[in-house]
């Protein structure tokens, strides 16, 4: 079997149907499971009882730009903080994930002399849906 390489170049990434690729330097859909451990007479027993998914996004800030993604996310967090928005993460190799995330307020400001960047940690509502073509 040939070696498969999937790089971040092959990622297509939208939030609320808006393309975030131009500003995104990293995007990760991460699971943090809750696993309870029981000490039994026969040794340890494990029970996977919950999952919390998080979308971690690192971006270059674009405050003030036309159709600013940062301003769009700010307005979502301001006006509809309890309403999820759909995220679609698709790889060129054919797998795609759909998740509903809660908007976050982007940070403002930066550190000289670098480009202004931000990291968004977005809570996922439920479990992402995976589609493999």
């Amino acid at each position, binding site marked *: 079997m040939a070696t498969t390489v999937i790089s*971040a*170049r*092959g990622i297509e990434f939208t939030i609320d149907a808006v393309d975030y*690729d*131009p500003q*995104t330097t990293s995007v990760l859909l991460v699971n943090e499971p809750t696993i309870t451990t029981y000490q039994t007479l026969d040794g340890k027993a494990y029970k996977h009882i919950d999952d919390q998914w998080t979308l971690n996004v690192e971006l*270059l800030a674009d405050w003030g730009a036309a159709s600013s993604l940062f301003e769009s996310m700010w307005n979502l967090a301001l006006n509809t903080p309890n309403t999820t928005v759909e995220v679609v993460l698709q790889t*060129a190799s054919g797998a795609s994930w759909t998740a509903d995330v809660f908007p976050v307020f982007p940070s403002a400001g930066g550190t000289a*002399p670098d*480009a202004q960047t931000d990291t968004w940690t977005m809570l996922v509502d439920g479990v992402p849906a995976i589609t493999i073509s």
Partner: protein
Amino acid sequence: MPSSIEIDVRDVLKTALSGISASVYSSPPEAVIPPACVIVPDAVYLETVTVGSGAIRVKINFVITAAVAYNNTAGALDGLEKLIISILTALPLGYVVGDVQRPTIQSVGASNLLIADLSVSTFYTQT
């Protein structure tokens, strides 16, 4: 007409710097007439920093080489410092400005130049 780094970045940067009292070159020239600033590629020159392949987007790293005639040490250094400050003042928004390296003396033809390199970077999207 498709965009290009030459037209949309280097020439734009050259135009932005054209107000300073120096010859401005958007690429390494055959002969430098001091005082001058020359836009040259840095190492690494082009970096891919964003995800996706829908459009080609790269971070471009340049070195702006500031050069003045090296006639006497104090006067040349003062001229170089003033030239660097004027370059920093003229740089357009959207540029990340790095450090200025230690000045060195270089012989170009029959003349000596005192030069220093300023690192800058910006982002470019191929359309």
